């Protein structure tokens, strides 16, 4: 299983349609404070099925929609699409390439698609189960994670192993 690209539109500070393509190995993301780097990490978390607005630094899910700027009005929808190479067949659906998309609207309505076919959030979460991208995986190590683990109690650290097992 191999990440090919992420397409972002209207998610947090990514008002304009943006596509990031990924190769093997290490891709570094650099830039000044507040430019949008962690927002990219939030995009990926979100399209994989994150349901906690707090983990995405907001209070409600609609907080991820571009809220406007001095020169731009707020947008009404946020959309992220993640494309994976599935030639290994790890995702148990019969496609060589799989694109998972997620949208949210100001109304709070949400849409989920797998290869352009509408589905439910549960289908997305089930798709990634046991692939190392689902719940309890370490696919995303956020900006406060190291601090969080250092300040955690012994019982909370147990949870790290329990969720992985």
């Amino acid at each position: 299983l191999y990440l090919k690209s992420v397409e972002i539109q209207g998610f947090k500070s990514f008002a304009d349609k943006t596509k990031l393509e990924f190769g093997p190995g290490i891709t570094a993301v650099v830039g000044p404070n507040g430019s949008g780097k962690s927002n990219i990490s939030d995009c990926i978390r979100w399209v994989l099925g994150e349901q906690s607005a707090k983990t995405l630094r907001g209070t409600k899910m609609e907080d991820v929609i571009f809220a406007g700027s001095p020169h731009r009005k707020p947008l009404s929808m946020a959309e992220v699409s993640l494309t994976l190479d599935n030639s290994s067949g790890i995702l148990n659906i019969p496609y060589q390439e799989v694109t998972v998309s997620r949208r949210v609207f100001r109304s709070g309505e949400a849409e989920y698609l797998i290869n352009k076919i509408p589905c439910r959030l549960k289908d997305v979460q089930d798709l990634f189960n046991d692939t190392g991208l689902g719940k309890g995986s370490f696919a995303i190590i956020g900006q406060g994670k190291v601090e969080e683990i250092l300040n955690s109690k012994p019982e909370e650290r147990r949870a790290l192993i329990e969720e992985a097992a």
Partner: protein
Amino acid sequence: MTKRFAGAFEEVNNAFGDIYQKLFGGGTARLQLANPEDLLETGIDIIVQPPGKKLQNLALLSGGERALTVIALLFALLSFKPSPFCVLDEIEASLDETNVERFSQLLKLFAEKTQFIVISHRQGTMEVSDALYGVTMEEAGVSKIVSVRLTEEGKQEFRSA
């Protein structure tokens, strides 16, 4: 249930001790069950001894030593439960240059089996990357991506952008 936890604990613990030594250039580290009889509920303590130092409570260690210890733990968890790709968001912020160097070597090693997307301000990390994206906000409040070629000057310039 507890059998699975015990197995996971064993495997993560071995990887942790191993990776810790790679990152610290020595020393020892292990996870310890706070209550070994109570496998269902026991918490987990972290016991470490950096090279040339005494066995100490994690609390007394320095900011950088603590961060590096947790980085070893995270990579141990990643080796136990691999992901096809992994996003790291500025996890090496408290490390000095020498430790960033060691961290970047570990990253290269893991990158043979895992794609990494590493958000970083640190030169050492940028130097082991195969590709580089720059994020800018030329227009106030709107993020824009620039693909950056990895020349020496290019990296220096971007760091100070």
